């Protein structure tokens, strides 16, 4: 239940007031214990809820190496597990992840004890509406398709030429991620944010340091020190840019924010979230898509022969390996999710990386297949937190980078003697991808 519809006040299933919206009403009724379900409820869903199974066999090193067999085993067992190694309930079915996205009242983004809040401040990603909407609206039209078409597309083209030139200059054997995808995505992000006083290398360092802070469950002091240093650098860069952008406005996020009555604390937190979320994701989806196509030459040939398929290849890549594999939510009350009872205040991991491979929705889900039947994936999230950078990512990766690089690097292929390495689960992508070309 987001901003629309007649029943925005529907809340906790145990508040006593049933929502008027039929879906929400059904969800509330379905969440009640079976013997409390009265007439007019959903008869097919009266089985008593189960407690979440404990997945004590899941380890973080295995998740990091390859989470997909773990997700498959979990999904086959139940849609929700308690996972001691992660200290969260992990939600792995498509239906359950989708239900969470549609119900921000029960599944709050405003998590207590959030490491992201510590590393980056309290950004819109950890707020619920109406507070979230104020921040989201403050980003204006910068990331929307109209501005991309009129303004960013030409800048992305120029940046792509520059970093493809650098890759070509390095010669075959260069690393696709670190010698091209990362600087290209970082330079685009630098200009979108409006950091005219910084370099793409700064953006890469800030992004990684603060992301490491966000994932610092081990409470490593060195990780916090680097994250705090990056955060302070971003604050200083923002303070430095705002007076300049007030006098010299442009299409950047900071320029728009400079003239709005948004607290500086929110501006800083939102920019840090954007630095974290706007760099790894296009970088990783670009590398993953190219890696997938180079590993499936028949599909690559189809894409090269029909330029409309670049967008399809991109979208299938986001489904197959969601660059953000998991994000947190916290329950505001006891609830039942897809038949599993979850207590109030429970910290959940919404595992998009698992939902996007749910065989209940996708045929042969573990395969990369650009010709599969089109179905909506959850890779960009959904509801009020639907990725604000979706169209920016589609433009810089599928419209600009992919067609140019297959044209510019004939015979582009993976290095058979120096294998690419993919890793990660909260964030997943290629950490090494040496490539050759003719």
């Amino acid at each position, binding site marked *: 239940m987001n901003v*629309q*519809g*007649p029943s925005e006040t529907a809340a906790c299933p145990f508040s006593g007031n049933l929502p*008027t919206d039929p*879906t929400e009403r059904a969800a509330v009724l379905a969440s009640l214990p079976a013997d409390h379900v009265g007439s007019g409820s959903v008869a097919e869903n009266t089985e008593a809820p189960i407690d979440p199974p404990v997945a004590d066999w899941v380890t973080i090193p295995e998740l990091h190496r390859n989470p997909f067999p773990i997700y498959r085993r979990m999904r086959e067992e139940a849609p929700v597990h308690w996972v001691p190694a992660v200290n969260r309930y992990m939600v792995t079915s498509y239906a359950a992840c989708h239900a969470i996205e549609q119900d921000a009242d029960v599944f709050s983004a405003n998590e207590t004890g959030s490491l992201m809040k510590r590393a980056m401040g309290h950004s819109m990603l950890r707020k619920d509406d109406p507070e979230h909407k104020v921040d989201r609206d403050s980003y204006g*039209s910068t990331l929307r398709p109209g501005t991309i078409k009129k303004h960013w597309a030409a800048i992305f083209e120029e940046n792509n030429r520059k970093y493809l030139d650098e890759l070509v200059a390095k010669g075959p054997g260069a690393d696709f991620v670190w010698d091209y995808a990362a600087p290209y995505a970082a330079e685009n992000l630098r200009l979108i944010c409006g950091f005219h006083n910084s370099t793409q290398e700064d953006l890469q360092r800030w992004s990684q340091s603060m992301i490491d802070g966000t994932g610092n469950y081990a409470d490593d002091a060195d990780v916090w020190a680097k994250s705090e240093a990056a955060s302070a650098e971003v604050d200083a860069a923002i303070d430095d840019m705002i007076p300049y952008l007030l006098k010299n406005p442009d299409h950047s996020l900071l320029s728009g924010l400079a003239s709005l009555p948004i607290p500086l604390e929110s501006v800083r937190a939102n920019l840090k979230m954007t630095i974290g979320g706007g760099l790894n994701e296009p970088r990783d989806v670009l590398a993953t898509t190219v890696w997938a196509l180079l590993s499936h030459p028949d599909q690559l040939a189809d894409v090269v022969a029909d330029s409309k398929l670049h967008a399809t290849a991109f979208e299938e890549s986001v489904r197959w390996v969601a660059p953000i594999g998991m994000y947190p939510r916290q329950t505001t009350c006891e609830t039942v999710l897809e038949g599993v009872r979850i207590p109030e205040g429970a910290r959940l991991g919404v595992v998009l990386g698992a939902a996007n491979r749910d065989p209940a929705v996708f045929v042969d889900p573990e395969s990369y297949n650009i010709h599969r039947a089109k*179905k*909506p994936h959850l890779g960009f999230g959904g*509801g009020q937190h639907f990725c604000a950078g979706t169209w920016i990512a589609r433009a810089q990766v599928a419209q600009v980078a992919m067609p140019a690089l297959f044209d510019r690097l004939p015979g582009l292929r993976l290095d058979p003697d120096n294998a690419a390495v993919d890793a990660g689960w909260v964030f997943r992508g290629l950490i090494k991808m040496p490539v050759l070309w003719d």
Partner: protein
Amino acid sequence: MPTITYVQPSGQSDTVTVEDNTSLMRAAVANNVNGIVGECGGQAMCATCHVYVRPEFADALPDISEDEEEMLDCTTAERTDASRLGCQVRVSTELDGIVVDIPEGQV
């Protein structure tokens, strides 16, 4: 309470009754009408609630905002003069009985 009829590409139709001022997207998602996704929850951000509004209801529709306009250029199915984003059309008395056609695809 107004009613809305969604016509699938197959010709099969669903008629739903909704609270005043409910959007075409929200009404479809809440009633499990096939072919309307509504990924972004109604922010005119994803273009997955594309519908074709039958011409007899065109005069009662709200104007197309700048956000909706640019997003209609991003729909998967072809944009026509009848194209609207379901999330941007709220149904009340003036649009009671509105009939919309669902496109072949949203993604």
